[in-house]
C-alpha cells in the first residue's frame, strides 16, 4: 500500500478539482506575439475565486505578458480572456475590475502616501469622507498608520511596497495582480512579507495572482502554481505536486535541485520499475501505474535531500552506489555535498544533508569514499 503519493495530501481548498466551480478568470487559447517572437502561445488557464495563484518561470518566458494581458496593457493577438464569465479582451485597463501591484511599485512621486492610496478611489468619484475612511483602513491594513503625509521618497523599500499594496487593494478588486512583489526586498523582510501577504489574501477573500521567477516565493504562497516556459504552461498544480511529481525534465530542473540519471527500463513488476543506468547500476523505484515499456529510454530524477550518505556500505536498501566526495558546500541549515560516482569520468551527484547538530567537525571530508543510498519512493521517472 502506498503511504503518501504526491497529490494525495488532503486539501480543504481545491476548486480546480471541482467540476461545478465557476472560474473567476479564464484564458481561452490566448496568443500574443511581438514581431517574430511568440510571448504567449495558444494558452488556456482558469483561476478560481479566492485562489492564490503563482506563475513561475524564467525571465522572458511570457509570464509578465500574460499578466499584462489580464491588466489590459497588452491585447492578445488571438483568443479571449474572461473575467467572471464576461469577455474582457477588448476592455481598456481603466474599466477592468482588476488591480496590479507593479514590480517598481510605480508610486506617484508627486503625491503623498495618502493621496497615492486615494488615487483609485478618487477616480471612482467617491465622497471625500468615504475616501478618507478607506485610505485610513488601507493604511491600517498594511500597518502604515500615521505615514499618510509622507512622500514616497521618504519611505524605506519595505514601506514603499506596502503603499503599493494598499493602493492596489483600495478599490477592492476582484483580482489582484502582483508583479515580482518581493524582488526589491531583502531576504528577511521577504519571508515575513510572504506570510503577511498570505494572511491578507485569506482575510480579504480576494483572488491573487503573483508572477515571480523565485520558486521559494511561489511555493510558499501559492495554493496552485503554474510553471511557464517559452510562452506555454508546462505544468499547473499545487506546489508539492510540482516539486515531487514534475511533468518533465524542464520543470524538474527549474523547480529545486535534481540529479538525473539516463537509463533504460529493464523490468516492470507491478508498480515497481527497474531502470538500468550507466553510473548508478539498476535503480528501483515505485511508480503508480507506470505507462512505460521495457527497453524505453528514460530519465530517473532524484532530489538531493532524498539521498542518504554513509561511509559503510548500507545493507538491505533498494538502491545504493559508491562514490567519492568532490566538493562540500556548507550552507548553514544544510550542507550540499557533491559526490562523483562511476570513477573520474562518471557523474556528479548532489546530496543535501541537514545539519541537525552543532558539531563544527562534519563527518565527511573531501575525497572520502562514501556510499549513497535511497528508497524506492525517492526517485521519479521522467521521459527524456
Amino acid at each position: 500500500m502506498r503511504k503518501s503519493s504526491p497529490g494525495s495530501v488532503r486539501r480543504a481548498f481545491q476548486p480546480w478539482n471541482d467540476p461545478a466551480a465557476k472560474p473567476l478568470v479564464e484564458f481561452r487559447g490566448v496568443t500574443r506575439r511581438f514581431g517574430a517572437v511568440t510571448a504567449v502561445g495558444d494558452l488556456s488557464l482558469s483561476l478560481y475565486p479566492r485562489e492564490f495563484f503563482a506563475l513561475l518561470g524564467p525571465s522572458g518566458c511570457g509570464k509578465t505578458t500574460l499578466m499584462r494581458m489580464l491588466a489590459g496593457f497588452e491585447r492578445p493577438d488571438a483568443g479571449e480572456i474572461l473575467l467572471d464569465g464576461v469577455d474582457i479582451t477588448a476592455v481598456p485597463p481603466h474599466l477592468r475590475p482588476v488591480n496590479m501591484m507593479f514590480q517598481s511599485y510605480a508610486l506617484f512621486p508627486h503625491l503623498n502616501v495618502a493621496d497615492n492610496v486615494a488615487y483609485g478611489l478618487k477616480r471612482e468619484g467617491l465622497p471625500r469622507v468615504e475616501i478618507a475612511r478607506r485610505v485610513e483602513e488601507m493604511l491600517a491594513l498594511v500597518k502604515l498608520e500615521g505615514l499618510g503625509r509622507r512622500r514616497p521618497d521618504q519611505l524605506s523599500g519595505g514601506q514603499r511596497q506596502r503603499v503599493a499594496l494598499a493602493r492596489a487593494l483600495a478599490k477592492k478588486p476582484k483580482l489582484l495582480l502582483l508583479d515580482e512583489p518581493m524582488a526589491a526586498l531583502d531576504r528577511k523582510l521577504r519571508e515575513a512579507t510572504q506570510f503577511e501577504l498570505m494572511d491578507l489574501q485569506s482575510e480579504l477573500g480576494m483572488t491573487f495572482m503573483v508572477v515571480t521567477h523565485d520558486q521559494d516565493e511561489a511555493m510558499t504562497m501559492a495554493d496552485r502554481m503554474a510553471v511557464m516556459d517559452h510562452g506555454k504552461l508546462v505544468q499547473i498544480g499545487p506546489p508539492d505536486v510540482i516539486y515531487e511529481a514534475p511533468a518533465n525534465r524542464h520543470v524538474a530542473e527549474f523547480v529545486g535541485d535534481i540529479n538525473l540519471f539516463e537509463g533504460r527500463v529493464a523490468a516492470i513488476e507491478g508498480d515497481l520499475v527497474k531502470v538500468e543506468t550507466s553510473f548508478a547500476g539498476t535503480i528501483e523505484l515505485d511508480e503508480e501505474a507506470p505507462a512505460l515499456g521495457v527497453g524505453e529510454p528514460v530519465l530517473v530524477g532524484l532530489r538531493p535531500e532524498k539521498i542518504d550518505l554513509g561511509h559503510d556500505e548500507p545493507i538491505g536498501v533498494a538502491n545504493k552506489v559508491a562514490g567519492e566526495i568532490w566538493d562540500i558546500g556548507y550552507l548553514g541549515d544544510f550542507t550540499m555535498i557533491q559526490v562523483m560516482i562511476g570513477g573520474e569520468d562518471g557523474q556528479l551527484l548532489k546530496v543535501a544533508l541537514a545539519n541537525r547538530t552543532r558539531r563544527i567537525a562534519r563527518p565527511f571530508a573531501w575525497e572520502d569514499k562514501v556510499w549513497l543510498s535511497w528508497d524506492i519512493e525517492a526517485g521519479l521517472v521522467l521521459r527524456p
Partner: protein
Amino acid sequence: MRRLGPGLVLVLVAGFAFLYLPILALIAYSFNASRLVTVWGGFSTHWYGALMANQPLLDAAWLSVRLGLVSATFATVLGTLAALALVRHGRFVGRTLFSGMVLAPLVMPEVVTGLSLLLLFVAVDAERGFWTVTIAHATFSLGFACIVVQSRLAGFDRSLEEAAQDLGATPLVTFATVTLPLIWPAVAAAWMLAFTLSLDDLVIASFTTGPGATTLPMRLYSAVKLGVSPEINAACTIMIGAVALAVIAASLLLKREQVAGS
C-alpha cells in the same frame, strides 16, 4: 577637481571676455550721462527715463511681450504634444519624417524660414501683422520646446501611467493627474525658451510682419541705422535682464526637476 594651468585660464578668460565684454560695455554705457555713446560723462539713469517717454519704443516692447506670450504658449502646447507622440507612440508610420519636420526649424537658416513663411502668407492672402508673426514664431520655437519636453519624457517611468490607468484613470485623466505634474518643469522651461526666442527674433519677424506690427528688435534695429543712442543701450539692457531672468528660471526649473525626478 583638477586645477587648470595658466595657459588654459588665459584662453578661458579671453573667450569669456570676447563673449561678454561687449554686453558689459553696452550695460555700462546705458548709464552714461553723455549724449555721445563712446564718451563717458558720468553715471546717470537719464536714458531709462527718456525710454519711458519714447512711445513708439514702448509700443514695440509691449507688442513683443504679447507676441512672446501667445507664440510661446502655442509652441509649448504643440511641442509637448509632438514630444508625446515621438516618445510614447513607438514606431508609427512616418515617425522619422514627423521628427525631422518638427526639428527642422532648429537647423533651418532663419532667412529661409522667414522667406518661406512670407511666401505662404502671401499665397493664402493672409493679412500680415500680429498673428502672422505669432504663427511664424510658434512654428520655429516649437522644435525647441519639443526637444526640451522630449528629454524629460524619455526618462519618465512608463509604469506610473500604467498604474494610473490600472486604478481607473482614463488616458486623458492620466495625463492631467500624473504625466503633466511630473513633466511640468520641462514644459515651463520649454515655454520660457520659446518666449525668449520670440523676444529675440529679428529676421523672421521682419519677413512676416506687416504695417502696424513692429517688434522691439525691429524698432531697435531701425533706430540703430540712424546712429546708436544711449537710449537704445538702456532698452537693450532691460532686454538682456529679462532674457537672463527667463533663462536662469528655466535652468533652475530643470535642475529642480532632475533632483525630484531621480
